[in-house]
């Protein structure tokens, strides 16, 4: 079959970028599929239906992967259900793509265009109408966010077919694969036909299987990735993917999707559905107007006069532009108005900070590195932060002052727009655990200031610590080998990498009285900062410092010795007792071994504050030491 690629003029590129941006904007705003705008837009430019669907699908599936990893972090993805549906959807995609190719071979480009347009009209009429009805229900309802499993879902969950049952965490019970397979298949068929399978997938999961809406839309991303990649490979195998179109759309779409998600945080929930419904019905109209042209091309109706066909195509294109303009207009207006109101209330928001730094807080200490008067405890309520809480309370009692306690509810604009009730519940839980820390501290005579933030966890911690000029952040550390955590780095490692404050990492069950200190130095300014901090702790606790440095082997030990001896001499001159040793081997192994040998209850070391690619390539000794030892580690910056 002859495959021809469209000549791209500058105007075409600009149009695709704008369409991609608006499609992304709408996608980010309504939570799914901007493809119902993108496929017709490409067709309006003269791209054949099959290539429009193929290129659209190819720009979408890597986005779905990124999105599903993001939402997996919030525990919204049922991976098992996503993979099972994805595999059955794959079958639908393969057959759907075969149907597409068959129609194209049998009826030509006009036949293929007619088929896609008719499916669009039918699906958009049903889904668009339903969405608008739902928007009206939400507008009138007193409890618009209430969700309950429908009668159909309850029946599906009650059917037991031996040998086909599988348990899904999102449904909370066993469901027969015989119900899931056809749903996946239909999702795949639709995706291969119009590149928007989510129109069937999400409602099917919600209304047929009884998956909560939030989990359904997140799990759909896994389905979209699995089948999108399969479908794209299938189309690419036949040479139908125009990667230029896909990537230009992606360029605009990724800008739009972020802005759309931000936009949702400024509007009422029913507004999202109004926008979705209105755009769907306008796109339906646009495709519907074009149908007589395709019918005429196929000579299934009396041939239209060329000027009539051209006029219909122009009107169809105009309606599509109107749909895009309406969608973009509503989202941008909501964003603009919302931002203006939010800025007005910025003063109120800024009140959500800890009390400012008092002038006398520096006391009689000169070095900012040795100061431990403003302590920030970060708690997530898990068993991993229990020990950190006890440590922070004890430290504040010893150093005097007020303990600042922070809890962060993990969220992002997308999550906030989709999961308001869930987010509110998490806020309540976080507030309760902050109060529990306050009560626990009060029993030890320590006063607390509490603060709750929401956003990306490590960014919020770093921003609070920096804004409120904290001397020390006290936090726990998680163990385990969750793949995603290893890939992106744990919160503790990210905080150490980005903050300007010192960080005390307390493992589960760890506690320090500061009686046996191990100071690890490498001659950098960061380890001088660690030495100043260790000196402050040693003075408080009246303990001796065991200063060490690490040489790669015995041969290099003599040249490393002056590094640690210099630090020990300076500490002794300041009146802090210390001795010096040179260890050999891998730094993290040697330091952890020495800590165990001397029974250290606190390791103090500097951090080079590596982040991003640098951290990935070079690694962080402090991070590896933290992972190896059972005692708290104090990281100076």
């Amino acid at each position: 079959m002859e495959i021809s690629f469209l000549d791209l003029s500058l105007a075409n590129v600009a149009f695709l970028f704008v369409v991609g941006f608006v499609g992304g904007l709408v996608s980010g705003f309504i939570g799914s599929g901007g493809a119902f705008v993108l496929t017709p837009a490409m067709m309006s430019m003269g791209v054949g239906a099959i290539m429009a669907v193929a290129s659209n699908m190819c720009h979408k599936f890597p986005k779905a992967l990124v999105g599903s990893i993001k939402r997996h972090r919030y525990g919204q993805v049922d991976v098992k259900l996503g993979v099972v549906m994805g595999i059955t959807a794959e079958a639908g995609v393969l057959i759907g793509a075969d149907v597409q190719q068959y129609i194209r071979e049998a009826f030509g480009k006009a036949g293929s265009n007619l088929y896609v347009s008719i499916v669009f009209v039918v699906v958009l009429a049903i889904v668009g109408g339903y969405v608008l009805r739902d928007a009206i229900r939400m507008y009138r309802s007193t409890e618009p966010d209430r969700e309950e499993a429908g009668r159909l879902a309850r029946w599906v969950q009650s059917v037991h077919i031996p040998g086909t049952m599988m348990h899904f965490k999102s449904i909370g019970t066993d469901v027969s694969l015989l119900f899931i397979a056809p749903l996946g298949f239909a999702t795949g068929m639709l995706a291969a036909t119009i590149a928007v399978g989510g129109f069937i997938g999400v409602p099917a999961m919600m209304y047929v299987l009884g998956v909560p809406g939030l989990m359904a839309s997140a799990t759909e991303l896994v389905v979209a990735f699995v089948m999108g990649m399969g479908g794209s490979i299938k189309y690419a195998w036949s040479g139908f993917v125009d990667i230029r179109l896909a990537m230009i759309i992606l360029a605009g779409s990724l800008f739009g999707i972020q802005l759309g998600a931000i936009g949702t945080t400024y509007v009422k929930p029913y507004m999202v559905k109004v926008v979705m419904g209105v755009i769907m019905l306008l796109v339906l109209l646009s495709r519907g107007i074009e149908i007589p042209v395709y019918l005429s091309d196929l000579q299934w109706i009396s041939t239209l006069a060329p000027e009539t066909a051209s006029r219909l195509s122009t009107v169809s294109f105009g309606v599509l532009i109107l749909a895009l303009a309406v969608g973009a207009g509503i989202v941008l207006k909501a964003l603009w108005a919302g931002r203006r109101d939010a800025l007005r209330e910025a003063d109120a928001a800024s009140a959500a900070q800890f009390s400012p730094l008092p002038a006398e807080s520096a006391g009689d200490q000169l070095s900012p590195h040795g100061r431990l008067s403003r302590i920030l405890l970060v708690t997530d309520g898990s068993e991993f932060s229990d020990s950190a809480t006890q440590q922070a309370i004890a430290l504040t009692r010893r150093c005097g002052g007020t303990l600042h306690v922070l809890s962060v509810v993990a969220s992002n604009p997308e999550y906030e727009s989709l999961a308001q009730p869930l987010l509110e519940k998490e806020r309540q839980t976080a507030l309760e655990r902050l109060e529990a820390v306050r009560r626990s501290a009060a029993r030890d005579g320590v006063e607390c200031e509490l603060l709750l933030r929401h956003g990306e966890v490590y960014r919020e911690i770093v921003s609070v610590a920096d804004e409120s000029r904290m001397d020390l952040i006290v936090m726990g550390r998680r163990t385990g080998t969750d793949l995603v955590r290893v890939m992106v780095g744990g919160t503790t490692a990210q905080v150490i990498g980005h903050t300007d404050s010192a960080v005390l990492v307390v493992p589960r069950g760890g506690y320090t009285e500061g009686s046996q200190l191990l100071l690890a130095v490498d001659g950098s300014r960061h380890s001088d900062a660690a030495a100043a901090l260790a000196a402050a702790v040693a003075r408080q606790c009246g303990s001796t410092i065991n200063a060490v440095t690490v040489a790669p082997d015995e041969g290099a030990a003599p040249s490393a010795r002056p590094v640690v001896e210099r630090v020990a001499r300076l500490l002794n001159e300041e009146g802090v007792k210390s001795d010096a040793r040179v260890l050999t081997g891998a730094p993290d192994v040697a330091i952890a071994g020495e800590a165990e040998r001397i029974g250290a209850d606190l390791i103090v070391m500097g951090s080079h504050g590596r982040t991003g690619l640098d951290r990935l390539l070079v690694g962080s000794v402090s991070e590896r030491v933290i992972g190896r030892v059972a005692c708290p580690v104090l990281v100076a910056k």
Partner: protein
Amino acid sequence: MSKKSGALASLLMPGLLSAVLYLLLYLYSPLILEWSGRGGWYFAIPIGIAFLFSIVHGTFTGRFWDVVGIKANPLKK
């Protein structure tokens, strides 16, 4: 380095990389299209490009709005 210039620097890296990728796509588009059009095992070319662009450009746009100051509503109840 201040936080703001740090954020700008973290935006510039993926931004530049993304621009270079799009420039390469523009310069080599006849060759890429010829390969894509052949189908068969050449499918790996458009699929690989889609993955690469998505990661690089996605990282860039993810930070873009934050750096220009458009953020989610912090006051939403």
